[in-house]
């Protein structure tokens, strides 16, 4: 059976714009190379260390956004719990950094909260390979489990969104409550070195920036490849007409679970990168609100194009810094107003506006 027939069948119902034309323009090889040169060569040369570090943070968020773009934009799964996966990655990395600093002793916050022996959960994280692997695999495993349970029962749409949001809320509360194990509200912070490199030095931060940029670039290429593959077509078909795909003999639950797990893995990796770049991981960075903020960033950038998701995360990150530097309270009004405007006037986001103008 050819892919085109499936695509056409599913598309007749409600064909959501897939931004394919846009992807060719915004994400075409020439544009991609130009952006890559700008990000890898120009930015480290031109930006002062403080700004470069901020850019690294936006790019980390862009990795999460890329995952949301896959799950939501392509697969129609509105996941409001990416913060959980981001947090699992972040805490894995944070625990490793804390342990290297403690040099066999107890991390500082445990001493403060009266913990006397290193909890068993922490012990394996002294190994950097274990920590990095867990940062990605734990989110993948959790998402796969959750996806299997939820999608197999055909729980979808709003129910899925609400469930993931509840997960984010529960996870943040759990982290706050387990003070001795997780550092509570303060989270994990005061990191000094990463794999033997001084985190405060400009050269380490520049190196970190480059790592983040390269990881984002590779993941973007991978995600694009996935979207253009047979699997990607199937994913879009599931988004547009899940029942029809099922009648054709495919299993939408598997397609959705795999995609959800991939997006969770991306968020986990981003969390692991976030910790050395920003220097902290705490419940406030991964609860309901941060999870939603990233989804909105994807909506602003343009959910149907992967490049739009990345763009949205960078633009919203920059806007937040720029506006809250000037007028702190105004940002919330602006942010709220922006969502309302984007959702009502431009549901396809910046990417949608760009492609419409050029078309």
């Amino acid at each position, binding site marked *: 059976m050819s892919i085109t027939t499936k695509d056409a069948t599913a598309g007749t119902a409600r064909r959501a714009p897939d931004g394919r034309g846009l992807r060719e323009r915004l994400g075409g090889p020439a544009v991609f190379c130009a952006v890559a040169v700008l990000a890898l060569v120009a930015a480290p040369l031109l930006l002062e260390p403080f700004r470069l570090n901020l850019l690294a943070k936006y790019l980390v968020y862009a990795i999460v956004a890329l995952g949301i773009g896959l799950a939501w934009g392509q697969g129609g799964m*509105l996941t409001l719990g990416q913060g959980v996966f981001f947090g699992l990655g972040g805490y894995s990395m944070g625990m490793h950094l804390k342990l290297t600093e403690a040099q066999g002793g107890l991390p500082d916050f445990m001493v403060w909260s009266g913990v006397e022996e290193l909890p068993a959960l922490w012990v394996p994280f002294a190994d950097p390979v274990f920590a990095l692997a867990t940062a990605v695999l734990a989110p993948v495993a959790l998402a796969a489990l*959750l996806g299997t*349970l*939820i999608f197999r*029962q*055909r*729980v979808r*749409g*709003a*129910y899925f*969104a*609400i*469930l993931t*949001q*509840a*997960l984010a*809320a*529960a*996870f943040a*509360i*759990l*982290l*706050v*409550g*387990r003070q001795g194990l997780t550092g509570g509200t303060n989270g994990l912070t005061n990191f000094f070195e990463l794999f033997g490199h001084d985190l405060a030095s400009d050269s380490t931060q520049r190196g970190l920036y480059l790592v983040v940029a390269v990881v984002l670039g590779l993941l973007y290429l991978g995600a694009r490849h996935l979207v253009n593959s047979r699997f990607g077509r199937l994913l879009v078909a599931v988004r547009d007409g*899940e*029942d029809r795909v099922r009648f054709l003999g495919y299993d939408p639950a598997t397609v959705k679970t795999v995609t959800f797990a991939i997006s969770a893995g991306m968020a986990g990796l981003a969390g692991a990168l976030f910790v050395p770049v920003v220097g902290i991981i705490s419940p406030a960075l991964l609860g*309901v609100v941060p999870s*939603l903020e990233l*989804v*909105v960033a994807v*909506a602003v950038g343009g959910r149907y194009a992967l490049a739009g998701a990345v763009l949205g995360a960078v633009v919203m990150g920059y806007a937040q810094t720029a506006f809250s530097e000037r007028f702190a*309270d105004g940002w*919330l*009004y602006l*942010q*709220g*107003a*922006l*969502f*309302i405007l984007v*959702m*009502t006037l431009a*549901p396809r986001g910046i990417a949608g506006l760009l492609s419409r103008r050029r078309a």
Partner: protein
Amino acid sequence: MEAFLNQLPIGLSIGAVLLLIALGLTITFGQMGVINMAHGEFIMAGAYTAYLMQDWAGRQAVIVALPAAFLVAGLMGLILERAAIRRFYGRPLDTLLLTWGVSLVLQQLARDLFGAPNVQVAAPEWLQGGIGALPYNRLFIMALAIGSVAAVWAYLNRTAQGRRMQAVTQNRDLAATSGVDTGRVDMHTFFIGSGLAGVAGVALTLIGPVGPALGTYYIVDAFLVVVAGGLGRLGGAVIAAVVLGLLNSFAEFWTDASLAKVIVFAVIVVFLQFRPQGLFVIRSRALS
């Protein structure tokens, strides 16, 4: 054993609060498929209405505020529906993001109008004290929840407008072709659903301080009640709210507050394995 029994009234009163909040949601979410994240801010608006009423109603503010908060929150909902949500029917997930933007603006507005620190609403004298482990204010909230459910039930089943609302919930297109003005019904629905949030807000002033973020503490749990109860089903919401309230308080009793939420979440995911669409489902032959 006594500590164990003490959890029962606590659980029931958590359930009553959840029910009051979820009642409005089950109407708007159930009928219109709108995930209204601003519902929490309508709760907050109701609570601040009670706060403002204190100026001339003194300690009886809570009672006077019940109808006033219903109107205030209801009107806010009506405006939201007419101005924005109306354009979003058929895109339920987008309403979630839209209304979240609205909720951010409303929270900041509350901060600018009333200040960031929490304020208190004094409860009437006759609500002080209680029977055993059950304070009067908790009993009052339970009574309020029962009364609200009864009122909504009567509205849905005994008035023409309510029956039209049910018709739209069950099959919007068929209702429209049968001559029901679905736009009008939507307005009524949103007014009532949001108004109930205002009532819930007044109730919350009895058990805690009022702040700009008041609604955010309850909104996620209230949505879970709707999911577990089944879309738009009154009976489902009642049972789900009481069960979740009890589950919350007993899970806290056996473990601690931070694990309780995780347990509740796990129980709901397991529950959905058996009843993917919640306790009560409107049967239909529609595909999705």
